[in-house]
């Protein structure tokens, strides 16, 4: 039993987080970066739990969450906070040191000439950042915690700046440190060093691409999975079967194929036969980890096989001669070129059969979702006791451990990168992005209400990016959108950035719900999207509204009439009188959203353009 009179708070934070996770070229980089930091944090909370009571995060079913947040809160005996902090720091540093040494040993087998060891040691030693404070738990619990949070913010004002001055070729993944090299550090010598690593039989294209040259930190990110590296008790998982960007983008397409297997199965299997054994991901030894798709597979003959093929093989441009080397992970032969034509043909036939089942080709875009609870600091600062604080932590833990994976991976075809407390990072095919983000924020509010925090909401940022667009840049866009949802839209909101392949970026957003409106925003958009998808409404309505929005902005009273006129004009299903109710109803709902103080007419036009994009998917 904790004696509340003689306790103090220890708030502990590990970094760097955003810059490390964001140095990602592929989904596997995002995943392993997140996993590595989370495992280091788990080492910290485990050690802290031996010396005190961890208030946040809490264990679920006797184990720490899959994603342990990088900031944790511990209650310790008065006067012991500093020594607990130092012990926790040492535990994390030791775990990191052991992991780095393990990967170094493995990498040494790939690059035996070890003049890179000194740079490795310097980069590994300087990498982790720790910030901790100790604050007395006296008086009002919530106020004491609030002050403790301010103290940690004050400590983090004196940010760690690594004393780095490294000459030479830069790491091609993070750009923050120099790339490892052999005895010579000239441009050609460094390239040859890494070419030598790449040629090792054990090294796959997933671990090291053509012309990549990495620093020690990014080398650990790439090779930790292969090298059987533990952090604490956790083995870092090999990353080959984490879905690629193409697999995430194509997941919705695969789901529709499985749902219409009777019509599509034969052409799917014919295509898989055409590419069987051709290169990495065709197929993988294990199917893609997707509970949603698994459910759809059921007993379908050959359905499971579909999940073993990378999404790359469902885009026709992958079979273009100039892309074969990247697809196959080796220099293509004449036979490969011939096979690529057969593969392109089989894919064309698959698309045609899918079209007959009203399934559009896969969108080349995927989405990244970043979600964060609103005003969590204030809510925690109003805790009346440690017990209540732990109840909130418990609610957050269940949200992160149960709700988020269930929604993202069982109800939709996404993958969770990180879910710690109220912070979520997930990948989703674009057709599932909006409903999944809506489901997550609703569930979050429900969980918090059950923990006696009935008014807590969440804000989300969505970024849509092409599957070949740098993933780190898409993630930055998602975080930026999340920030816009909070500061630009005033929280309890969703902001979206659509990074078109043409280079233009569209930005829109909305509150989840506007006071005085009967319908939630996304429900209205869902209904509208349905009309667009079914072809009941032409997507050209979006362009017409965009063109007129500037003028309509000045005459709110005319907006509903004009929206109704445009919907009527672009309604495809006849006779129109039969659908008059739907048209009028939709116009009323859209006009309500278009009013000043809500989405506004110009942003509404942006929404229609987005929905049109989601429906058509910007096929290449």
């Amino acid at each position, binding site marked *: 039993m904790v004696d509340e009179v003689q306790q103090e708070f220890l708030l502990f934070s590990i970094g760097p987080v955003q810059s490390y996770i964001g140095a990602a*070229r592929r989904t596997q980089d995002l995943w392993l970066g997140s996993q590595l930091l989370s495992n280091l944090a788990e080492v910290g909370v485990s050690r802290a739990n031996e010396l005190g009571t961890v208030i946040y995060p809490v264990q679920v079913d006797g184990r720490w969450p899959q994603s342990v947040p990088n900031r944790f809160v511990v209650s310790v005996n008065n006067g012991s*906070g*500093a020594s607990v*902090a130092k012990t926790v*720091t040492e535990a994390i540093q030791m775990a990191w040191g052991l992991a780095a040494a393990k990967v170094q040993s493995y990498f040494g087998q790939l690059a035996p000439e070890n003049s890179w060891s000194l740079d490795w040691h310097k980069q590994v030693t300087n990498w982790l950042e*720790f*910030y*901790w*404070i*100790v*604050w007395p738990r006296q008086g009002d619990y919530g106020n004491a915690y609030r*002050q403790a949070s*301010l*103290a940690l913010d*004050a*400590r983090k*004002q*004196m*940010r*760690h*700046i*690594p*004393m*780095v*001055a*490294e*000459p*030479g*070729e*830069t*790491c*091609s*993944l*993070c*750009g*923050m*440190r*120099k790339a490892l090299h052999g005895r010579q550090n000239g441009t050609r010598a460094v390239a040859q060093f890494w070419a030598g690593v790449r040629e090792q039989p054990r090294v796959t294209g997933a671990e090291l*691409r*053509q*012309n*990549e040259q990495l620093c020690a930190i990014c080398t650990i990110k790439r090779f930790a999975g292969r090298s059987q590296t533990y952090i604490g008790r956790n083995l870092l998982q090999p990353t080959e079967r984490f879905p690629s960007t193409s697999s995430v983008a194509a997941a919705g397409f695969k789901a529709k194929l499985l749902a219409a297997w009777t019509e599509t199965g034969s052409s799917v299997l014919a295509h898989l036969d055409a590419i069987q054994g051709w290169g990495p991901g065709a197929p993988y030894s294990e199917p893609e980890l997707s509970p949603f798709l698994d459910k759809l597979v059921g007993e379908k003959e050959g359905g499971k096989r579909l999940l073993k093929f990378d999404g790359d093989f469902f885009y026709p*441009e992958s079979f*273009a001669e*100039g*892309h074969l080397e*990247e697809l196959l992970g080796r220099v293509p032969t004449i036979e490969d070129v011939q096979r690529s034509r057969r593969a392109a043909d089989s894919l064309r036939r698959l698309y045609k059969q899918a079209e007959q089942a009203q399934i559009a080709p896969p969108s080349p875009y995927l989405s990244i979702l970043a979600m964060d609870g609103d005003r969590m600091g*204030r809510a925690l600062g109003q805790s009346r006791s440690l017990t209540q604080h732990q109840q909130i932590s418990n609610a957050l833990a269940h949200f992160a451990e149960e709700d988020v994976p269930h929604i993202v991976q069982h109800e939709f075809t996404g993958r969770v990168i990180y879910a710690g407390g109220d912070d979520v990072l997930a990948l989703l095919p674009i057709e599932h992005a909006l409903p999944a983000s809506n489901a997550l924020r609703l569930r979050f509010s429900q969980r918090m209400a059950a923990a006696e925090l009935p008014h807590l909401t969440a804000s989300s940022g969505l970024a849509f990016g*092409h599957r*070949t*667009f*740098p993933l780190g*840049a898409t993630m930055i866009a998602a975080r930026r959108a999340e*920030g816009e949802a909070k*500061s630009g839209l005033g929280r309890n909101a969703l902001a979206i950035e659509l990074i078109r*392949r*043409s*280079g*233009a*970026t569209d930005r829109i957003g909305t509150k989840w719900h506007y006071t005085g409106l009967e319908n939630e925003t996304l429900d209205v958009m869902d209904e509208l999207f349905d009309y667009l998808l079914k072809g009941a409404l032409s997507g050209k309505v979006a362009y017409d509204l965009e063109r007129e929005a500037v003028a309509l902005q000045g005459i709110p009273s005319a907006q509903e009439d004009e929206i109704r006129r445009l919907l009527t004009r672009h309604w495809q299903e006849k006779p129109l009188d039969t659908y008059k109710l739907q048209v009028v109803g939709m116009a009323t709902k859209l006009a309500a959203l278009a009013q000043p103080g809500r989405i506004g007419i110009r942003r509404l036009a942006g929404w229609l353009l987005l929905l049109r994009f989601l429906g058509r998917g910007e096929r290449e």
Partner: protein
Amino acid sequence: MSWIFLEADDVWCFRDNTPKLVGGSTVMHSLFPPTPSTIQGVVRSLILGESDVDWAAYRQQSTAAAQQLGTLIGHPASNEQEATLGQFSMAGPFLARREVDEIMIYAPMPNDVKRNKEQMEQLFTMQPSRAHHFDSNWPAEALSPLWLNAEESESLDGEQWLSGRNLRAYLQSNAFGKLDASVLYARESRLGIEIDYTVRNAAERMLYQTEFIRPSPGVGLLIWVANAIASAISDQGTLRIGGEGRNAYYCTVPDTEVIYPTRFSSQQSTSQPSPSRLKLVLLTPAFFDGGWQPKAGDVGWSELLGASVSLVSASIGHPQRAGGWDIAARNGRGWHKPIVSYVPAGSVYYFETTEAVEPDRFHSITQTPTEQPLPLDALGYGQFALGTWEWL
């Protein structure tokens, strides 16, 4: 004293250290303002270009004219000699804007400024607090935390700037306003595609996006240069700057037309106020051999500031990593500049002192990494403004 003001003809591009991804799409961001390293190259190249000295002779310092120029702006390293800066000295670059009869400096928002979470236009400045004492892994001894008594504050997001006048108000602990970067410049992403020269056509899927900076009308970069340097430059002209060698107009500007924060903004003169609690705000990035401060701590600071000072607190921004390419290195073959972690502009340091602190107007407080051949203090790094502070 002379200033050079650069204005864009169209857009500029100053790549940051984001790696260009090999194969497939790439996004390259611009750093704005550019690093002092970039601008020193521009100014020295301008002088070289306006002279009659052959560039190869300049690099080798093989003629009398080249050596004379080398005495003025220094020269690159060669087999026979190390790189030098000669008499070259600059401060900046500073973001600036023409405002009627003057050119106003703009400073990045200091890192110790927060905003009200609900009323986001309301700004607060953190202050060192003696009342809030707690155990922590402080990065140095005897530091005090920065604190705010305001409820519900948060860091500002995006890029925010202070005009010279608002910077003065901030340094004097008076109310001040901010300016969003979008008023001063826009960031434009432009799509490009790699060319396959074997077929003289676009390479497939090799798209890239480069971020360009479009300064608003009247907005540009202001650089202070030593008199000897200013004398070697025409009053106005054009030059190439940054990625893709984009065009810029330049003109020299007399000091009387520039609004630049004086050393002690609490007074009209440059003498030090009393009591001596000095707040130092970086206006350009700085390098310290201890990362966020000199390794020697207060001894190091005292050396840099020319008076005995004690560091009380600090508010440091995210490290700015910069490297680049030295085109003259290795006998003209070129070589990477070292990747260095700088303390970014906007970082704030709080000192107490019992001595007069009277640095020259463009005195720099940066150190220079041993891997760096040229002294950073002469290249524009470590410029700062001084104000005062009070305990919370």
